[in-house]
């Protein structure tokens, strides 16, 4: 297992480098750059060229990449073209917000999906199954921006109340932090729970058809015990994959929910950086996302072996 993890960690390096090279090239291939955006449409061509030189954007692409990569190796991730502030500082501020939202969202999703998916699978083709599938289908069909906006409008119009805007860390003011994250977590979690509910249901239905379940039943075990101890544990392997990808995706930023609930997370930071052609900011966020996605996949793979003794990596 240790060797496997070490090998995966080594492979992670070229993966991340490849991602940064692709994004670096694509960003520069897009028309318009930080210089023209910074001084707007009222500037002359000469002024834009001068600023491009000032920002180092007139250098060959490979030279710009190596300057950036050399900086990263020494811990210097660069400064924002727009604000002239170190990009790592802004990312550091955004990560806790996205991490908390991701964690709260996934916990909500798991808390909803496990019982709902199990109930649906164990009550197949009954009212409870139809209801669970309807809830899941709605979660998949309603876009986050619609659900988020409805939640905000509902709270404002019915209760004349909204969660405090912005972000207060949990350790500074737990109550305000809770108010800020409950509703975004519900919105994010509901969508994820829809996916997971369907996965739990279908996976559990598969497992419940297996011979060892029949064997367990014939041994006289109660139905809940069979489901809990024999079926659910085996059914969770594909669900874990889903949880892993959801955590990775949400840590990279739930852009819509962050926007609607005014949370200054990674997603908002990234979108803003792309539209402003803030190259250094885009690169550092992409680096972070690549690491998060790769590591979350690795953790899921390792957890397979923990949950299912049949899985081995030696």
């Amino acid at each position, binding site marked *: 297992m240790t060797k496997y993890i070490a090998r995966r960690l080594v492979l992670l390096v070229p993966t991340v480098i490849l991602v940064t090279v692709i994004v670096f090239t694509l960003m520069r291939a897009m*028309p318009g750059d930080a210089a023209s955006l910074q001084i707007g449409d009222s500037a002359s061509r000469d002024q834009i060229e001068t600023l491009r030189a000032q920002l180092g954007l007139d250098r060959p692409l490979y030279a710009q990449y190596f300057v950036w990569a050399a900086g990263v190796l020494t811990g210097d991730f660069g400064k924002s073209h727009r604000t002239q502030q170190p990009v790592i500082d802004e990312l550091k501020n955004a990560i806790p917000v996205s991490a908390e939202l991701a964690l709260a969202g996934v916990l909500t999703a798991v808390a909803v999906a496990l019982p709902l998916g199990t109930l649906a699978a164990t009550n197949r083709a009954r009212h409870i199954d139809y209801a669970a599938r309807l809830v899941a289908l709605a979660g998949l069909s309603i876009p986050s921006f619609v659900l988020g906006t409805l939640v905000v409008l509902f709270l404002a119009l019915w209760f004349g109340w*909204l969660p405090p805007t912005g972000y207060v860390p949990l350790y500074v003011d737990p109550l305000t932090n809770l108010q800020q994250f409950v509703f975004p977590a519900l919105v994010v979690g509901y969508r994820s729970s829809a996916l997971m509910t369907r996965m739990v249901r279908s996976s559990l239905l598969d497992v419940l058809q297996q011979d060892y379940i029949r064997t367990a039943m014939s041994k006289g075990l109660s139905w809940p015990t069979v489901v809990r101890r024999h079926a659910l544990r085996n059914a969770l392997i594909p669900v874990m994959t889903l949880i892993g990808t959801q955590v990775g995706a949400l840590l990279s930023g739930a852009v819509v929910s962050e926007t*609607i609930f005014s*949370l200054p997370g990674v997603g908002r930071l990234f979108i803003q950086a792309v539209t402003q052609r803030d190259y250094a900011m885009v690169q550092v966020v992409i680096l972070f996302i690549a690491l998060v996605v790769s590591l979350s996949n690795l953790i899921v793979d390792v957890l397979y072996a923990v949950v299912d003794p049949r899985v081995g990596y030696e």
Partner: protein
Amino acid sequence: MSESGNVWTHRISRRRWLGGTAVVGLGAVSAALIGCGKKSEAPVASDNKAAAPAALTPQAAAKPKNGGEIRIAVDGDPVSYDPHIEASYRTQWAIGGVYNRVLGLTTDLKITPELAASWETPDPTTVVLKMQQGVKFHNVAPVNGRALTAEDVVWSINRITTNKPEFQRRYMFDQIDKITATDANTVTIKLKQPFAPLFGYLANPFTIVAPKEAAEAKGDLRTVAIGSGPFVFKSGQKGVSYKWDKNPGYWEKEMPYADSYTLNVVPDAATRLSSLRAKQLDIEVVTIDQANSLKGDNNFTIDSVAQGNSFTIRYNTTRAPFNDVRVRKAFDMVMDRKQIAQLVFGGAALPAGPISPGLTAWAMSQDELAKNAGYRADKAADIAEAKKLLEAAGQTSTQFEYVYYIPDIVHEQVAQVAQQQLEKAGFKVKLTKMEYAAWIPFTLEKKFMMTGTGSGFRDNPDEYLYALFHSTSSRNDTGYKNPEIDKLLELSRSQLKDEERKATVADLQKRLMNEVPNSWIIGQTLNEARASNVKGYVPTYTHNRPRQFVRTWLDK
């Protein structure tokens, strides 16, 4: 910016101005008392005459109360705090209350004293500004509450003219030959030639006086905001909020009334409106639909103010087909501005000429505009004439490309309505959308045929005319060249008497409307909703909002 009152030929002092405004103020209070008890309604501009430049809800006079926090929201973070580099309203909303500018602007865009208490012009190329006495910077290191002097004004104006690309507004003062601090309270400006727009530019919202040592300590003013204004910077958290506290030593006595001012970053418009409803915000810019949804709710007051900006369609006059004035005219005549105002802006907009209708002192009146082809009520006659012009130019089978940029939905909507209007007249128009970052170089390199764009806030006729249509101006995107227009533009800059300059500006507008380098479509109106306990606040043009907070108080 309105330069009425002829700032060049009359000596104006703060005392005199205050005397004048006191009379106006008494009138306003009387009008307000008469208007008391009227139900507040969103003054939606449904036709030319209904939309006055400022349609404000009367406020009853009452003794201002001290205390409380003024809370507003913005859709994104200011890129930086540097007033001499940035041009966005976001920066202005962040630092507008921190600083003072050399001259001020009233809510109806008239020049008033601010840091300069009075001024005189001994000759057409000399301006002498006398500064307010007793103005101090905030008591924050490294400035530590020292007195603001004429040297600070000189340093700030010189910094605005720094020859680096990021200093975008150095054109405002490029006619200054020399600026000196004659003594601690006097600034003398020597001009290269008579330059009428100077006072307008001195009152520009970004002509802000900052302390040199603050910029030196941090390298620039991007991350530091220490001024002489009513509010002192307290904290700023990107993506969250920016906070200011009352400046206890503010030079305008007894003000500001509020203890603090907070700018919350709320990117989503629906969330901002919900925050206003949930009493988390006190004042908010709303769309016309949102304004209508608040109609009848006594918790809010809604006002509508014409802005100093406009939406235009630019034609590339350097190449076919729009190098032919007949084609430009044909397109201009087909545009139904009232329909665009209604369909895209819900009626909260006015047909515009070359100068935005928000600049009432300089813009063509709605009655004047209505006499012109393209603005007339009889669109059938306009369309028939347009078809003839296009036929005469031999362009009836040409496929025209209209480029607009996103993500601003307004540009897309205007483009779609314009396309429908043009196609109804038989013109073939293809729409192409671009990201703003891509649109800038595309436009600068004059690759476009026609393109829709909105101008930001401009408070000076010079910015609408000379900047956009003089053949040597770097901001002349259409490539329009006309020696006669050039001469008139130069003349308008040299005329120091308002009546003469106004006549030239009026002539210029008429000629430009005949030449059609742009189709000027509409001037937008800003709709603002505020909680009913917010008093003393007068809605104004976008960049001036934080300056209103000095007189704003909360009736709690």
